[in-house]
């Protein structure tokens, strides 16, 4: 009984050590899923010392030592795997061996075996995909119980004389098994609690970060301006609880929220040396409040005492800053520092993305202009050549064709809006087709199958023309016999299909190898209506090429169209 009490005293020592352990930086190593080599080395040292300490605090009994050495070895195996367990076991075992006594060899071996048992339990739990149970006190208790029982058997098996061994085990078995198992369970339980607290803090912090990101990114996507900056600064201050938040562009404060707003005003130029440094050198500047004090250049009574200034950048170029401030009465939390830096990175990415989107839409705009300006010279000269020949025979037809030609070019040049009605687009291509029909004569016939209900349908300008041009240029013009083009517009449920088909089947390559015109049609439709709409090409060589444009039937577009005429 005395022995149990003594060992419990030792256990108290273990608990103190466990407490210190859970507060030490070593604890950080237990939060990750996989341990790196360096972390394993640290854990090896810590647990080896711990295990050896168990030996020293042990009680000499009948020439042996009743001790809590097992806890270090088993836990090392349990937390770090068999290699770490055996390493700690061997280290503590060798140490024990050199202390002598008739059980020296048996104890040395058994400590190694205990480390191995911990390691095997570790492996077993990982195989079963239950890594969270590694830190379960019951697991630690059971593993240590088995390990200690094994130690007793090893002592009986190896230590000589046998009679002394039996006598020893009779005395120490129960107290040691109990004390070690309970000690290990307590140790693990304490570590687990500490781990939980940390996870909880981490989770809270992550949740906060996501809330801020979620609430502010939408605002930022509307642009980087005084108005959006004001909303963002307010949200960041509320969520982080820092004293004040400022957002600046390269020259002036866009928004300021929080303590000191009376003299830090939006619209004022950037004056603090920290902000200027961040803008100039494109790096994070931090005045933590005790090594370096934030000193407001505007007012001696400014309550702000510490500042973090993070540059916002787009493409390596600084476009502004985000600053977090704490008053002199408060410490600047490290967690807010990393938060501020992360937020600035996130915003920089969002700004880059906005700029990219902006340039993409500019590009499409200018490509449209190009398409408009790009009057196909081949078409023009062939048309003129045809008309010159027709003038000799049929002046009226020639006049008619010249009218069509001027109509075609006029609408081509006058199209300003991005959206036209189907009727307007059809009128435009019919002028084009009339001229091509005159040019090709009997070699070209055109069949139009248009749902008359859809004439007011609004479509992006130049949707049909590039398709028709392609059908003529790469289809009909390449055909030895009779060429035919079908133009169809119809509706299936909520989808509109615009089709241009020819019977040549001579352009079967993928869309992206086609001319600028077709690609632009596809891109614009996808930009406006989403990627499930757009253009597809279906081709049977020598038989047909079918270009299909898929558009959504937007009810308001159909109805509104009457107003826009």
């Amino acid at each position, binding site marked *: 009984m005395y022995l149990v009490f003594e060992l419990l005293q030792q256990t108290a020592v273990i608990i103190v050590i466990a407490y210190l352990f859970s507060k030490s930086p070593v604890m950080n190593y237990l939060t990750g899923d996989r341990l790196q080599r360096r972390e394993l080395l640290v854990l090896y040292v810590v647990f080896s010392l711990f295990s050896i300490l168990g030996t020293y605090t042990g009680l000499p009994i009948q020439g042996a030592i009743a001790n809590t050495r097992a806890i270090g070895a088993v836990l090392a195996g349990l937390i770090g795997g068999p290699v770490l367990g055996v390493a700690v076991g061997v280290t503590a075992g060798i140490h024990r061996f050199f202390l002598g006594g008739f059980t020296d060899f048996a104890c040395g071996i058994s400590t190694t075996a205990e480390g191995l048992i911990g390691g095997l339990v570790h492996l077993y739990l990982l195989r079963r995909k239950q890594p969270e149970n590694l830190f379960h006190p019951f697991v630690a208790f059971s593993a240590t119980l088995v390990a200690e029982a094994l130690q007793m058997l090893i002592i009986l098996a190896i230590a000589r004389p046998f009679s002394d061994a039996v006598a020893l085990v009779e005395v120490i078995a129960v107290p040691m098994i109990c004390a070690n198992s309970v000690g290990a369970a307590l140790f693990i339980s304490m570590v687990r609690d500490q781990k939980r607290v940390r996870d909880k803090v981490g989770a809270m912090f992550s949740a906060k970060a996501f809330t801020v990101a979620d609430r502010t990114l939408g605002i930022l996507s509307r642009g980087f301006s005084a108005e959006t900056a004001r909303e963002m600064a307010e949200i960041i201050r509320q969520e982080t609880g820092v004293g004040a938040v400022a957002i600046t562009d390269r020259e002036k404060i866009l928004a300021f929220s929080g303590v000191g707003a009376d003299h830090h005003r939006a619209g004022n130029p950037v004056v603090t040396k920290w902000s200027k440094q961040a803008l100039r050198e494109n790096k994070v500047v931090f005045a933590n409040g005790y090594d370096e004090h934030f000193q407001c250049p505007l007012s001696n009574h400014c309550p702000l005492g510490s500042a973090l200034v993070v540059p916002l950048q787009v493409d390596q170029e600084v476009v502004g800053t985000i600053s977090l401030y704490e008053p002199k009465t408060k410490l600047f939390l490290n967690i807010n520092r990393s938060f501020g830096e992360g937020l600035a990175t996130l915003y920089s990415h969002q700004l880059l993305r906005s700029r990219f989107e902006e340039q993409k839409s500019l590009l499409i705009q200018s490509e449209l202009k190009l398409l408009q300006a790009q009057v196909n010279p081949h078409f023009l000269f062939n048309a003129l050549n045809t008309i010159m020949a027709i003038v000799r025979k049929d002046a009226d037809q020639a006049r008619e064709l010249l009218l069509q030609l001027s109509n075609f070019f006029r609408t081509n040049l006058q199209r300003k809006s991005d959206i036209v009605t189907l009727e307007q687009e059809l009128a435009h291509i019919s002028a084009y087709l009339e001229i091509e029909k005159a040019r090709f004569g009997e070699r070209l016939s055109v069949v139009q199958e248009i749902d008359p209900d859809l004439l007011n349908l609004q479509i992006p300008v130049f949707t049909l023309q590039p398709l028709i041009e392609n059908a003529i240029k790469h289809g009909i013009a*390449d055909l030895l016999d009779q060429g035919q083009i079908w133009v169809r517009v119809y509706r299936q449920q909520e989808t509109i299909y615009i089709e241009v088909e020819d019977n040549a089947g001579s352009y079967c390559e993928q869309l992206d190898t086609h001319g600028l015109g077709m690609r632009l049609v596809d891109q614009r439709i996808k930009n406006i209506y989403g990627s499930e709409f757009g253009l597809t090409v279906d081709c049977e060589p020598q038989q047909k090429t079918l270009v299909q444009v898929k558009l959504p039937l937007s009810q308001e577009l159909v109805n509104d169209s009457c107003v826009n005429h």
Partner: protein
Amino acid sequence: MIRALIIDDEQHAREELELLVAETGAFKLLGSCANAIDALRKIRTEKPELLFLDIEMPALNGFELLAMIEDELMPHVVFVTAYNQHALKAFEEKTLDYLLKPVSPERFLKTINKVRESIRRGEPPQYQIEPLRHIPCQFSNRVKLIPSNDIEYVFSNLTGIHIVTEEGQFFTELTLRVLEARTSLLRCQRQYLVNPESIDEIKLLENGSAEIKTRLGTPLPVSRRYLRQLKVYLKL
């Protein structure tokens, strides 16, 4: 009178040129053709001295038509195009005669005077002919264009010239000599051309001739005369 032929796929364009040609009174117009296949026949039968040749035509363009004409039949050519930057550049570089549609009468006169001069001097027309990438073949009332790389071998018999590919046998109006000169096909016997890419093995025979086995397993005769050339070509 210079014997001239107009080749253009557009009817109005042909009519316009016919009128311009007639107005000069310097030409005997042999006719107008709407495509390269018809034109090739006409060139064989009528042997024109001058072509007014449109570049953009269906199936086979103007340059491809030139590649199908035998050297001794090669007429002088005035190229006609509406707008083709690529072709214009080539015309300028090779100092070829060309007209732009719509054709202005002044420009037309200037060009044909130049051509008439060189015909009168008897200068043989010299055009850089590009290799034939497609061989037009008669195929049940249609024209089939066979990529020259797909040809296994070509042979001639009493009924004409036949092109053999994996897909079968096709009749063509091109001569063996044109095919030999304008494609990578090699002559292996008086009546046979073979695609060197299709040769599977060459078996040398005792009398100094040989036999080719093609990839499709067809045996082709190789005469002594062409065996030497074949060996040189294949670096044997």
